[in-house]
């Protein structure tokens, strides 16, 4: 008799305790792109709480890493640029770390992802804008780019570990952390919201993805866009790592004479990189993932493999000829459609 009652109670307990989490999502603008925040929570109220935290954090980092606008009471990248050749600027720990790591990676990797290249990159940005607004486009003049390139050396950056200040030596030197900022910010925010109690969610900041937990104990499935038809996915990753960043030639570009000029400029040629169609980096560090997705977009698979080994990340390369290369560490987790 007792046994039967205890079995019954157990059954009732089981049904009571298993409350399934529901999926909610929201999207908002930040870092000049659409950010998608998805979370599996008990109810909408809980989701809204985390959503607000995520949005506020994105606003904070967007301002902190902004190279083009000043904000009251924030020493951001624009502040550093405004004081180029004048004085050092003390910055928030997160910004200091971002710059310092970018410098480290630059000197220890292949010297392709240059955060000081912005004078050159901006010339291409002008053409991208023209293209998006149906205005006439021309390629920036190479002689002009070479002039601008004189101010783009990474040695301009002077770091001061003691007071977390950055000094740009030349007046014409301008920094832009766009190639590393989103990945780093997304990772920081994901870590923060995880500490606040969120157990399952995804932040997708325009190609920079940070994962929190898993989906009901199954890994999240990530879809990687097909470069020829970026509205469909060409392969999926069952990801057990937390940060995935893709750089692709279809993200920001302009067309001229039937040729696509993408947004990742090779500092050695001062032209858009012409090696791969998309590179996806998978690792547990968002800054690293973003840095190397830009860097490896400009490199061939042998160099990428070497960097992957040295810096410990996995990768998926779709090269100019649509050939897909997957690193060994995640071969089992990738499914090609």
């Amino acid at each position, binding site marked *: *008799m007792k046994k*039967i009652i205890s079995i*019954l109670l157990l*059954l*009732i307990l089981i*049904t009571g305790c298993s409350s399934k989490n529901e999926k909610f999502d929201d999207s908002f603008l930040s870092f000049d792109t659409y950010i*998608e925040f*998805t979370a599996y929570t008990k109810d909408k109220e809980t989701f809204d709480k985390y959503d607000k935290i995520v949005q506020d954090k994105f606003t904070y980092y967007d301002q902190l890493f902004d190279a083009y606008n000043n904000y009251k009471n924030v020493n951001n990248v624009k502040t550093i640029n405004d004081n180029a050749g004048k004085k050092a600027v003390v910055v928030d720990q997160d910004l200091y770390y971002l710059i310092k790591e970018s410098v480290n990676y630059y000197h220890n990797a292949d010297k392709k992802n240059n955060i000081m290249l912005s004078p050159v990159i901006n010339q291409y940005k002008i053409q991208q804008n023209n293209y998006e607004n149906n205005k006439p486009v021309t390629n920036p003049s190479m002689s002009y780019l070479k002039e601008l390139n004189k101010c783009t050396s990474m040695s301009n950056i002077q770091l001061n570990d003691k007071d977390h200040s950055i000094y740009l030596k030349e007046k014409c030197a301008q920094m832009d952390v766009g190639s590393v900022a989103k990945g780093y910010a997304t990772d920081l925010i994901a870590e923060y919201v995880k500490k606040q109690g969120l157990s399952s969610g*995804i932040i*997708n900041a*325009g*190609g920079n*993805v940070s*994962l929190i937990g898993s*989906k009901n104990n199954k890994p*999240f*499935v*990530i*879809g*990687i*866009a097909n470069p020829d038809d*970026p*509205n469909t*996915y060409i392969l*999926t990753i069952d990801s057990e790592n937390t940060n*995935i960043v*893709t750089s*692709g030639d*279809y*993200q920001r570009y302009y067309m001229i004479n039937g040729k696509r000029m993408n947004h990742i400029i090779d500092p050695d040629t001062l032209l858009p990189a012409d090696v791969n169609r998309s590179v*996806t980096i998978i690792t547990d560090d968002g800054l690293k993932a973003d840095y190397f997705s830009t860097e490896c977009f400009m490199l061939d698979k042998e160099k990428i493999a070497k960097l992957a080994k040295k810096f410990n990340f996995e990768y998926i390369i779709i090269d100019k000829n649509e050939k897909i290369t997957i690193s060994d560490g995640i071969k089992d987790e990738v499914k090609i459609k």
Partner: protein
Amino acid sequence: MKLKLNKLDILLTIIISILGIILIFLSFKYTHISGDKVAEVYYKNKLVYTFDLSSKGNDSFEIQAANGPVKIIKEDDHVRVVEENSKRHLCSLQGWSDETLAPIVCLPNELYIKIEGVDKNDDVDVFIK
């Protein structure tokens, strides 16, 4: 075998009743799908037609089934069978369905209609563009 109701019988009744209620409760809890649904029509166990229940409007489908023609119509978000050749017209008797727990079954015609949930972007949780 005794003729009088005894304690064991009552216990049996209570246990089975509670179990039955729990199972019914569970089956509702875990199979109710909110969001987009489709009604899949299977003939001889093969999918022959799918109604999109998330789109407003009417739709109809007719098939030559085992006992004759069967006509199924959809209005907005529920489906039903309107015509069939069977002794007791059980299929059309089942009326409208829009729940996964209430498939429409027409066994004499070897046909059934399943209500399933559908995820818009299929298998991925996040899509990196």
